[in-house]
């Protein structure tokens, strides 16, 4: 108890003693090192994919399929419910502003742009982080604590090839698929509401939708989701792999992986939106 109090006091004293500039420099250096490490994980992934031999690919494909089933197919239920609720709520809100909005092309473009291009990839990524990203960080951390990497290495199997490559590819494909479901189920929710709402004419809504939503928009949204899947997987395998020998490191690293994944997905989404639609 005394030791922990002393240690805390020591940390506080150090914190007070260091100037703002020192802290800023330290933070910058640590952040640079962190992004460099994440970059190395991605680079190692690219090199690893190229270097996988035919037999190893055969086995890895099975692992990728397994990951896609867990992250993409098993999440259909959650994504369907959330997408219908989100799509429905957005439509109900627009109806409250403008009861005849199905004739308003501008409002329809706002709804499509907001839900299909922005909310769909972000929500799917949040679901992916919660379901799969956390699981990956915990699983990898536990494997490190249990020294499974030593057993794999002894069999000539790289931990990176065995664990990380299928996770990164699997999450990218799964998230692109989830965005696709999200879009389909959102459109379904709109059609469902319109069929029950007396102020909305289904034919008019479909006409406006056809004019506001292109296949390219859906493809771009799915591509954004796929890249967010890569970001989530890279961040989560990095933090899971950073666990050394203590089980207490697993929750610490997992929570960091989740928060960082959220943050980088939002930053990426903003950067793409600004780059693609504004610049």
């Amino acid at each position: 108890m005394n030791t922990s109090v002393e240690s805390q006091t020591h940390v506080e004293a150090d914190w007070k003693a260091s100037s703002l500039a020192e802290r800023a420099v330290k933070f910058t250096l640590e952040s640079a090192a962190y992004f460099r490490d994440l970059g190395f994980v991605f680079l190692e992934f690219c090199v690893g994919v190229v270097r996988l031999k035919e037999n190893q690919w055969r086995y890895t494909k099975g692992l990728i399929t397994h990951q896609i089933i867990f992250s993409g197919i098993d999440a259909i239920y959650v994504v369907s419910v959330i997408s219908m609720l989100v799509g429905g709520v957005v439509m109900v809100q627009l109806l409250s502003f403008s009861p005849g909005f199905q004739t308003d092309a501008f409002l329809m473009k706002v709804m499509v742009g907001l839900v299909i291009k922005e909310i769909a990839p972000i929500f799917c990524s949040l679901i992916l982080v919660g379901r799969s990203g956390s699981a990956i960080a915990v699983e990898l951390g536990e494997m490190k604590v249990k020294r499974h990497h030593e057993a794999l290495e002894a069999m000539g199997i790289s931990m990176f090839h065995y664990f990380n490559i299928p996770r990164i590819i699997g999450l990218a494909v799964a998230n692109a698929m989830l965005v696709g479901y999200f879009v389909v189920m959102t459109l379904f929710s709109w059609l469902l509401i319109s069929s029950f709402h007396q102020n909305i004419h289904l034919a008019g809504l479909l006409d406006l939708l056809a004019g506001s939503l292109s296949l390219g928009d859906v493809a771009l949204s799915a591509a954004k989701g796929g890249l967010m899947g890569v970001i989530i997987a890279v961040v989560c395998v990095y933090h899971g792999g950073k666990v050394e020998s203590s089980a207490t490191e697993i929750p610490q690293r997992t929570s960091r992986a989740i928060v960082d994944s959220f943050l980088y997905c939002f930053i990426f989404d903003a950067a793409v939106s600004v780059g693609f639609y504004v610049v």
Partner: protein
Amino acid sequence: MISLKNVSFDSSRGEFRDVNFSLAEGETAVILGPRRSGKTEFLQVCLGLHPYKFGEAFLEGRRLSPSGARSYGHFAGEIGIVTQHITLLDNLTVAANVGLSLSYHKGLGGAEMLKRVAPLLERFGVGHVAEKFPHEITDSEARLAMMARAGVESPKLVVLDEPTAGDLDPAGFMMVMDALSSFNNEGTTLVVATSSPSVALIKYARLYYLVDQMLVPRSAVSEVSDPVASEFFARLKEYRERQSAETSPFYEDFYSDGKNRGRG
């Protein structure tokens, strides 16, 4: 096969100096010593995984770099390694764990892999748990499965770190000892590090004891004034006497001929 000449290396217990050790093909060496006496580091020096300062270390005629920069991956298919911790992958069945290297490197499908692995599982006494997952089997079955995994590519050398560690019941212990003897009978070179005196009863084994940061052959232990070592070998002697008198049913199956044939 393994040769250390005047090797010095650091361990968690301090610096080991002038360690000399040699093991020819087909021989078995048992490295005895209490927990945290440096056994794992010694095994790692033998494999080139741990740095050493002075002397020379050879594995299969090749000089090992003092940097200890090798990784476990260097030995794939050549040396079987059984680590101290249970390292079966949780999401694979026992059979898939044992045949993982065959599936991964050689692209063997499930049925073909099982066909290759089944006799090995039977040989190590874990055929009945082939389709179970690691959390569904006992510690001794997991250790036996790890031994089967180490032997799946018929390596010339198998290195085992604390093969009887964990929660082994007497039957499980006997099964592990049988598995060790199975390697021995196949002519595989075996290095076993253990803190359990009873493992020293393995047939034809050359015994060494790690004491005071030295590797002492069994024959020279009396020259070392270490109370732990003395008590250890006194206990070992007692085991052997009980065994030869056939008063202990515990080891009867293992020593079916009723004689202690160890060379130590």
